[in-house]
């Protein structure tokens, strides 16, 4: 029995010895805890985990390991690890209680079936009483397997799970839910609860066997069978057919004459009595105990095998979000080359002590546009579009030799202002009597933000808002002013 109990809770032995134990970060319990933490976070929001994430990232490289380490740290803090530790002895206690009940009821069933020896035992009723419920529940279990319900595991196992989940605090329910979810996703619930169900039935049948042996040893029973409509041949075939399999394991089968005798009255011969008892015990052992034992072994094997291969399903939403933080696909290095303090810049002169004659319009880095150049006021000249280094050099040389009285520099408000353009505007402004910048509206409109960046940059370079035209008519009027 203790083997059954232990197998339901296979744990690392050292984990049981060392208490308080360091947070486990591998094995089944760690994954159980991770699942409990995930369910807790799903139900009531993310936990504060900055330290835990940092620890997980320094201690392991593997994503699942990191999830487990984080869960171990958080679970300890939130009391989930303790709840898991507390769940196990409680569940074991319930299992123990159920096991005792199973043993006793099996024993009691055997006593009730055989009676006090005052009346002969009806073999068919006795066998039915000993194996009937067991076979019926077995049928249900098989049906549930075939039905494919993943929670299937037999009524006894479910009852045990229900008991150990319900009787306990809130946390208890959460860790039980985590266990069920973890095992359920891996398709292990049926084997896990099957272990409990078949284990309990095994104990009940052991109890029944013990009851049979005790009563058969201490009392003298006569065996009969009764029928009103069936021929005796049918009974002989039934008894012998049923006894065939136990006979292969050395159990005796009543011969035809003994069966006949039992049908007509009390079996008198001592041999026949022994054969009947052996037949009854053999049937309980083979069709009850052996079947349950084999199924129990099957469930245990499949459960343990599945448990060993169990991994967290990192595709679950809770873990997927975590994975991005625990094993980020990118991390910042930081600033490797700090920003310069202040970059030197040449101020733009609005007005300069140069007196020229002309009014000059100049386009800086304008793209070809049907609206450009606009009709100029009389006396103003279009100096064209300046883009390349050579064009810049030429216009500077021209201005140096013949400075204009007014210089209107047109900038494309769709572009971003940059230091190079502002420097060049400043250089141009030194060679003109008066210098203004025009951000024309007549060009196709772009991002309004860039226009305001121009205004700002020009102001920083020394051109206040009054020296920057955005109204096309005003710009051209300024260019034509003073010419009569």
């Amino acid at each position, binding site marked *: 029995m203790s083997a059954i109990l232990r197998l339901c809770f296979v744990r690392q032995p050292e984990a049981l010895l060392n208490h308080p134990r360091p947070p486990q970060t591998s094995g089944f319990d760690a994954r159980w805890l991770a699942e409990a933490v995930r369910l807790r976070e799903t139900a009531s929001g993310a936990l504060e985990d900055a330290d835990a994430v940092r620890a997980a990232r320094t201690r392991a490289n593997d994503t699942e390991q990191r999830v487990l380490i984080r869960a171990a740290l958080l679970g300890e803090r939130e009391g989930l690890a303790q709840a898991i530790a507390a769940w196990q002895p409680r569940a074991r206690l319930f299992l123990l209680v159920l096991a005792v009940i199973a043993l006793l009821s099996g024993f009691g069933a055997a006593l009730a079936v055989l009676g006090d020896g005052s009346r002969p035992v009806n073999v068919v009723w006795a066998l039915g009483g000993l194996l009937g419920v067991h076979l019926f529940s077995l049928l249900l279990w098989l049906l549930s397997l075939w039905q494919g319900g*993943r929670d299937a595991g037999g009524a006894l196992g479910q009852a045990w799970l229900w008991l150990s989940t319900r009787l306990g605090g809130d946390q208890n329910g959460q860790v039980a839910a985590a266990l069920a979810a973890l095992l359920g996703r891996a398709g292990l619930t049926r084997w896990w609860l099957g272990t409990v169900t078949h284990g309990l039935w095994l104990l009940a049948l052991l109890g029944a066997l013990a009851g049979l042996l005790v009563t058969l040893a201490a009392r003298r029973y006569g065996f009969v069978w009764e029928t009103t409509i069936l021929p005796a041949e049918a009974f002989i075939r039934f008894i012998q057919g049923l006894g065939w399999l136990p006979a292969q394991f050395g159990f005796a089968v009543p011969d035809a004459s003994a069966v006949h005798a039992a049908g007509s009255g009390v079996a008198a011969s001592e041999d026949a009595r022994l054969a009947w008892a052996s037949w009854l015990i053999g049937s309980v052992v083979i069709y009850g105990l052996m079947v349950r034992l084999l199924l129990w072994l099957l469930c245990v094997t499949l459960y343990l095998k599945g448990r060993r291969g169990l991994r967290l399903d990192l595709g679950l*939403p809770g873990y997927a979000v975590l994975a991005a933080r625990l094993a980020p696909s*990118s991390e910042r290095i930081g600033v490797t080359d700090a920003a310069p303090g202040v970059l030197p810049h040449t101020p733009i002169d609005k007005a300069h002590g140069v007196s020229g004659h002309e009014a000059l319009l100049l386009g800086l880095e304008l793209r070809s546009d049907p609206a450009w150049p606009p009709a100029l006021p009389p006396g103003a000249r279009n100096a064209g579009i300046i883009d390349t280094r050579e064009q810049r050099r030429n216009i500077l040389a021209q201005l140096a030799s013949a400075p204009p009285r007014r210089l209107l520099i047109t900038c494309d408000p769709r572009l971003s202002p940059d230091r190079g353009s502002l420097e060049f505007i400043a250089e141009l402004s030194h060679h003109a009597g008066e210098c203004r910048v025009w951000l024309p509206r007549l060009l196709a409109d772009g991002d309004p933000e860039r226009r305001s960046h121009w205004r700002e940059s020009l102001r920083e370079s020394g051109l206040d808002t009054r020296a920057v035209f955005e109204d096309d008519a005003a710009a051209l009027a300024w260019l034509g002013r003073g010419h009569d």
Partner: protein
Amino acid sequence: MTERASDTVRIAVVGHTNTGKTSLLRTLLRDTGFGEVSSRPSTTRHVEGARLIVDGEVLVELYDTPGMEDPIALLELIEGFVSSDGGRLDGPARIVRFLDSPEAATRFEQEAKVLRQLLASDAAFYVVDARDPLLAKHRDELAVLGSCGRPLLPVLNFVSDPAANESVWREALARLGLHAVVRFDTVAPERDAEPRLYSALATLLERHRPALDRLVASHAREAAARHAAALRLIADLLIDVAACRRQVPGKAPADIQAAVGDLNGRVRAREQACVDALLALYGFGSSDLDATQLPLIDGRWEDDLFHPETLRVLGIRIGSGAAAGAAAGVGIDLMVGGITLGAAAALGALIGGGWQTLRHAGDRLLGKVTGRMELTVNDAILRLLALRQLYLLSALEARGHAAPRPIGQFADASSALREGSLPDALKRARAHPSWSGLFGDVPRASDRQVAVDALAGELEQA
């Protein structure tokens, strides 16, 4: 515990000022908090790096650099450098001379940072604002950058803007000998923009091709995992809401009103939890929402879930019989068919041993006998929830981590969910009240998980 492999690919992200270099990094790193992004020119004035990690190994380092601002003058300066004997210098030698010159510490300090980083890198992404015309300063800039002797991969940003001149740029870049050009809109990157970027880079850096291929494969895996997780989040929400059944504690109208209000509140809160989880999954924290406004206000949907107008906008038809309930968003189930559902559930409980289910079936039969009313969330609300979350998901997937503007209203979300029959898994959930976590219980039936996974699969098809 990330290790830096000796052959990490180092890439400098360079370009003219205000072309979206930092935005490109944010999108490639999936990190909305990297550097500082604004529409102002010369926002970034330092060099800042970040690593791309696959399985704990650093495969790529990306360096954000200040914008080039005065390339015409810089090229003029650099072209003036000659060797000590008056002979010609090659490109990299001139750049080294420039970096040692006093101008590199004063007027051209910002440009010097770019060139220093480029010399220390294996290649560079040259980011172009495709809305700008190709000017002489861009040509000079490319000449300066080209002098460093590192492969340049032009990346056309803002290509989805109507003002973009993609073909002009491609032609001009080809004339400068730059034939490998990649479209990459940092605001709304095309689905395959990132793999194309790295595979184009691999053609320039043949030695690093295996690492870049690994990076692309890993990112594809991560994207698929994110998508699957997102669908499971949505399916989880829908199952929670669909499965929910609440008995009204009394028969008075006020009792019903209170119960409906409570249920509505819980459904709203549940939807919000799903929105938060989706945002977190896609790396858009609620603190970043200023920069990434969806049709959400501070991470909350603008339109209330239970307002009839919200349904109308999405084109979800409300059956005439359910209209009164639909305005409240809650169907009142007078337990017609409660018997059959209860019987089916009881049979299932018997076979599967589901105690929960058996208990609920019992509750329902009891309710039938005592004439109590039961509340469920109706189909229209389920459809609305599904459409809204799927819309949010597609918006998040199409969104770069540098997007500054809100995305428009629901363009046209999938119509399969708008009409027609609800997915099977949702119908099944209606018969399993124990699957709902709406009222705080942790649903633990693993059949529920099966249903969630099945529904996620159906949403994928939708």
